[in-house]
């Protein structure tokens, strides 16, 4: 196809999309407004399940199966990245040059690591009550470990990060979600049904399986981000290829 023909195809595609999009927009309900058929039902169901954060109730109870899909997407993409970024036979590992970090920055990093980790765990644990949950808190917790690389140095991160354990925890978090779903099948009516006692509204022990599923996602996301960043760090700082020119040709 010539360049000219390709541009015509692109223009036709864009025009068609614009036309369909504009037609769809005319049918949308107005911005704001008080008519929320789906929202009202979701809030009603969340209150019945004693989950204060309706979003968590939708994600981990009413449509928990969707979240299993999302979690699996993350799991699979991290797995793919690990395979792509592995050290091949013609690459060698070189110790990265040490970097001098100012003392104040080092102190800040060491002090903030536990604080950030705690905030991450707090966000995971309060998923059924306030904004946040397993994914958000998991990413915060994973970031806290990398303060060691950012503010201290790379060997310190490597010492405190047994990668094998995180790879194991990644799989375990994913498995925990699947098994919790199976528990719903055994003890209740359906896969991922909320079979646990619902507890007292607006307390940490409320929402039945919601906090447990949040914890499973939290473990999976924390480990997944740590594993992902570990391979990025190794590629950027340590791994050097001998035959890179030959392979990229």
């Amino acid at each position, binding site marked *: 196809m010539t360049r000219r023909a390709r541009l015509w195809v692109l223009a036709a595609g864009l025009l068609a999309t614009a036309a369909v999009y504009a037609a769809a927009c005319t049918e949308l309900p107005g911005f704001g407004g008080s008519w929320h058929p789906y929202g009202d039902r979701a809030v009603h169901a969340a209150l019945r399940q004693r989950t204060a954060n309706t979003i968590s109730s939708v994600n981990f109870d009413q449509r928990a199966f969707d979240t299993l899909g999302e979690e699996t997407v993350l799991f699979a993409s991290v797995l793919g990245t690990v395979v792509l970024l592995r050290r091949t036979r013609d690459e060698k590992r070189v110790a990265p040059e040490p970097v001098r970090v100012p003392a104040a920055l080092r102190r800040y990093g060491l002090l*903030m690591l536990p604080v950030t980790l705690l905030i991450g765990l707090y966000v995971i644990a309060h998923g059924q009550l306030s904004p946040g949950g397993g994914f958000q808190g998991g990413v915060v917790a994973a970031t806290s470990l990398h303060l060691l690389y950012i503010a201290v140095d790379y060997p310190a991160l490597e010492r405190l990060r047994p990668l094998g354990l995180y790879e194991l925890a990644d799989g375990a978090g994913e498995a925990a979600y699947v098994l919790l779903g199976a528990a719903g099948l055994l003890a209740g009516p359906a896969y991922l049904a909320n079979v646990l006692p619902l507890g007292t509204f607006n307390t940490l022990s409320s929402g039945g399986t919601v906090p447990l599923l949040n914890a499973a996602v939290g473990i999976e996301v924390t480990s997944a981000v740590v594993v992902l960043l570990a391979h990025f760090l190794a590629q950027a700082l340590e791994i050097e290829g001998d035959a890179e020119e030959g392979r990229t040709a």
Partner: protein
Amino acid sequence: MNWWLAAACALVAGGLGPCLWGAARGPAGGRVVAQNMATLLLCLVLLLLSQGYGRPSYVDLALVVAVLGPAGTLVFTRLLGDEMGERPPGTRLLTPAVLVGAPATVVPMCIAAGPGRAAAKLVLIGVLLIAGGAVTSRAVRRG
């Protein structure tokens, strides 16, 4: 719309807007300074929004920004290295901004919240902001 939301709106338009302008042009150092300033302002905006909407649980967003914002800036200062240059423009503004902005937002909110867990959380955010601001402005200055 109440005064809290009006203040948040003013900070978004008059604070985050210029930060975007600063991050979009010039050498890397000045851009990182603008990014750092933006995380500070964002934390204040989120605090004001939480108070303006009357949703105390929205404070969690500000709490997360107070720890991850400085971490993000430190990522840039660490990995951009020599590209940053010594004393990028705007560095002098960082410390005064955090020393004025954090108390000016946190103290009225604490008074509005009254003593209790909510006020303690707000004070924690203020302390984290000031500590993060001090460390990042130092890291940016050294280049």
